[in-house]
């Protein structure tokens, strides 16, 4: 019994050591502690990415509403088409992350690279709006920000929602 316990612990120690070593060396590695507090921002395992994101985030619904009222920015909804059809920020364009590649060409043909863009998805549990913002920037769009509270935060504040 004691022998079995010893060998079990040995297997666990080998596994944990290997895990920490590979995580440290791998480009896919993550920090030992992540950002899992929705009060702070979007939840993510990758705190380094979160720190970079902060530079292009709209951190609260009130600011997003001001941007919306100024009427110069294009809101881009990156949730699925089904969720978009159920309701979205008025004037928003649907560009689901799931079919991003196939719809990007048509989007890029209509929208100028200088156009201010606000991406959003399902709020602080969702990183899709960040991923989409990054892809849009790589595609040459120069003025992209992320509304991190997404549609749930928008609705919570009683702001208008459009259904087609």
């Amino acid at each position, binding site marked *: 019994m004691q022998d079995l316990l010893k060998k079990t612990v040995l297997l666990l120690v080998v596994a944990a050591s290997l895990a920490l070593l590979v995580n440290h060396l791998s480009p*896919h590695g993550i920090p030992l502690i992540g950002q899992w507090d929705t009060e702070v921002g979007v939840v993510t395992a990758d705190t380094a990415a979160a720190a970079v994101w902060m530079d292009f985030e709209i951190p609260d619904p009130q600011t997003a509403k001001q941007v919306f009222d100024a009427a110069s920015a294009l809101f881009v909804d990156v949730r699925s088409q089904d*969720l978009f059809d159920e309701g979205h920020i008025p004037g928003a364009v649907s560009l689901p992350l799931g079919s991003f590649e196939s719809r990007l060409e048509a989007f890029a043909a209509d929208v100028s690279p200088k156009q201010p863009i606000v991406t959003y998805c399902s709020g602080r549990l969702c990183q899709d709006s960040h991923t989409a913002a990054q892809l849009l920037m790589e595609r040459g769009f120069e003025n992209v920000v992320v509304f991190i509270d997404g549609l749930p935060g928008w609705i919570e504040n009683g702001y208008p929602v459009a259904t087609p």
Partner: protein
Amino acid sequence: MVYRDGLRMGTLSRHPETGWRANGWLDLGLRWLLGGLFVLASAHKIMDPAAFAKIIFGYDLFPAVAINLIAIILPYIELTAGLALITGVYPRAAAVVLSGLLMGFILAISINAWRGHVFDCGCFSSGEAALWQGTPGWMLGRNGLLLFMGWSITTFRGQRKIVVRSG
């Protein structure tokens, strides 16, 4: 009652068994199946620990400081114990480790099914993982079957086939 060479040692010889509980080939088959499944399951978690961490977060059972550590270490426990089971390095200990994991999974799924907790972040990026996980009923059934395999390997009383390091 037939005594085999492997049973003439230690306490095992006092409880010789025949039938499926002492069938070395069946034991090997179970080891390869259980070990192989865990090695396969560990692969995509190892490739994308950030996505796996999000799934763990979604269970809403663990403190924030533990989530990344679980996401980093758990897949390697699956991989190490799975490979140990396949190659025959401490197969019994490896089966104990995997059985422990399975009991943990069953407990976590049961708690969330009981309290009606379903994590749906409306994200495209987590959709694939959710698909792979399936419904609570399917996951409990599958894990229950795997746990039975783990128990069979742990309590095996015959002569094991292909063993590099016994125990």
